[in-house]
């Protein structure tokens, strides 16, 4: 898209950014992330439906952080991720220039995160009813059947951690799975290790996950991780009315409480 290419080239030419993260077509035709450092590279820029990856994951990569000013093309999920990262104090001031293309194909350069907040508020992502249906189907099964389903799914996990690597919200420099004093998560990819890994990951992402479903997309074993992320997010919304990636200030359900939080199971 010419307007977008011009914008990226302009940002690079005027030294407003030293690197711009966008997409390009790889040798095999697959769309992949592109890191432009010079205006004359920008002709390679790809814009279109095949650009799926949530690029927000790169803003905390050490090699990217070396560039003092980073530009990024953000789709709606990347915007939500960036907003959540900002709320979690993970983005330095004046580090990012965030660009998006709206539904009318207009290029928008955000002045600050408040603008992103209102942009997201106006561009609600429709709830995926299919996923909700899948979840309800699972919930309507007996507990034993649900257990069988998840044992079968999670047993196949090979612990490649692609789901963690692709996730913009998984930024800990030392993940719990890498700690061994004490060892919370069993390292081998047997079913026990896999259950521990996925339960821990979901607990750490509850109300931080912006449900971009990248983890599900990249899993080599085709494990339906989106069911877990969608479930935990809708739980958080139902129980506490809080959703990640909506506000510039931290709105993290597990960091706060209400005296009258409702439950019906504590004796």
């Amino acid at each position: 898209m010419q307007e977008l290419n011009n914008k990226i080239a302009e940002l690079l030419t005027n030294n407003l950014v030293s690197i711009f993260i966008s997409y390009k077509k790889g040798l095999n035709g697959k769309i992949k992330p592109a890191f432009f450092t010079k205006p004359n590279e920008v002709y390679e820029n790809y814009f279109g439906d095949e650009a799926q990856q949530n690029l927000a994951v790169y803003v905390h990569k050490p090699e990217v952080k070396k560039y003092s000013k980073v530009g990024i093309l953000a789709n709606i999920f990347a915007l939500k991720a960036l907003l959540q990262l900002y709320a979690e104090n993970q983005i330095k001031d004046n580090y990012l220039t965030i660009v998006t293309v709206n539904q009318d194909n207009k290029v928008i350069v955000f002045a600050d995160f408040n603008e992103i907040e209102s942009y997201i508020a106006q561009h609600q992502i429709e709830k995926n009813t299919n996923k909700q249906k899948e979840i309800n189907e699972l919930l309507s099964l007996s507990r034993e059947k649900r257990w069988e389903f998840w044992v079968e799914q999670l047993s196949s996990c090979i612990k490649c951690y692609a789901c963690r690597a692709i996730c913009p919200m998984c930024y800990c420099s030392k993940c719990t799975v890498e700690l061994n004093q004490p060892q919370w998560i069993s390292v081998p990819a047997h079913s026990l290790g896999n259950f521990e890994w996925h339960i821990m990951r979901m607990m750490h992402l509850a109300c931080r996950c912006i449900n971009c479903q990248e983890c599900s997309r990249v899993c080599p074993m085709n494990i339906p991780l989106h069911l877990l992320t969608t479930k935990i997010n809708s739980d958080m919304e139902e129980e506490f009315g809080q959703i990640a990636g909506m506000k510039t200030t931290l709105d993290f359900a597990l960091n706060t409480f209400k005296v009258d939080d409702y439950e019906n199971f504590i004796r």
Partner: protein
Amino acid sequence: MKILSGKIMNYKTLKIDNLDLFFNEIKKSGKNLLVPKKKGKTTYFSSFININDVEFNYIQTTISPKSALFPKVEELISFKKDDGTYVVTEPSIEKETIVFGLRPCDAVGLEYLSNFFLNEKSDFTVRLRKENTTLITLACKNFDENCFCTSVGLSPASIKGSDICLTDIGNGLFYAEIITDKGEKLIAEHSALFSNAEKINKESYVAQVPLKFDSDNLIKNIKNYYNSEKWTINSLPCLGCGACAFVCPTCTCFNIEDEANPVCGTRLRCWDSCAFGIFTLHASGHNPRPIQSNRWRHRVLHKFGYSVTNMDTLSCVGCGRCIRVCPAGMNIIEQILDLQEA
């Protein structure tokens, strides 16, 4: 690199319609038969149950068949406290396994993998598994833009590493090349299903995979590439997961984990990957490969450099799995072409 070939002992044909019978006979004989299956976008190897869930429509399986020799988690020893003394048991791997449907490049990959484990000190479990495993390769009719076997000295017609190689020659027939004694033995057990055949020229029945790069030139120049600036910029997309290594038929890195309490325990060998940041992290806190570009470089140079020095062979068979699976679109072919361009 010259085209690698083995010595063929015998030629046969097998009616494709008889595969079902063949599989069921194997199953009945109590052996474990691994066949490709599909779940969503993933093709993987799993035990044969029914011909209907065997997948035939794949360029290459998502996951390599290496688990047959080198599973994602395996027990090396286990111990148990019994009457105050500890009893240690080594695992027994007796069940004969037959892998059906791996590709010619995979057979070479598994050969590399077992050579690696059996090289200096023969690894106990890999040796047992290797002795008990028969590989029935399916020559490729199709390829995609990520296949590059021909660039690493192989081809869809190569039979190296296979015990039996099947090629679809039309008219509902598989042409079977029987390469090893293990292959002979298996065919003999099911001889009623196989008919004798003459040697034919396979070339016209298999995919013609175009050359992507010149590996002789790559091997010759590989030392000059270590300090190339291209590693950094090219590896920016790489996220440091283990996907590429875990799907690769020749990646052999592992980690040993003890899971034990005072009463019983096991020592487990698990897959590991050089792409993980903590893979090379020392106890002192020093990390000789501190950034992702170092790790990406290590992966590529291992495949095309270090293994040539150490084992006199490339350790990439061009199956393209790492390219297909990478969540960030990293492409080993692109990297090599870019290095060679300079």
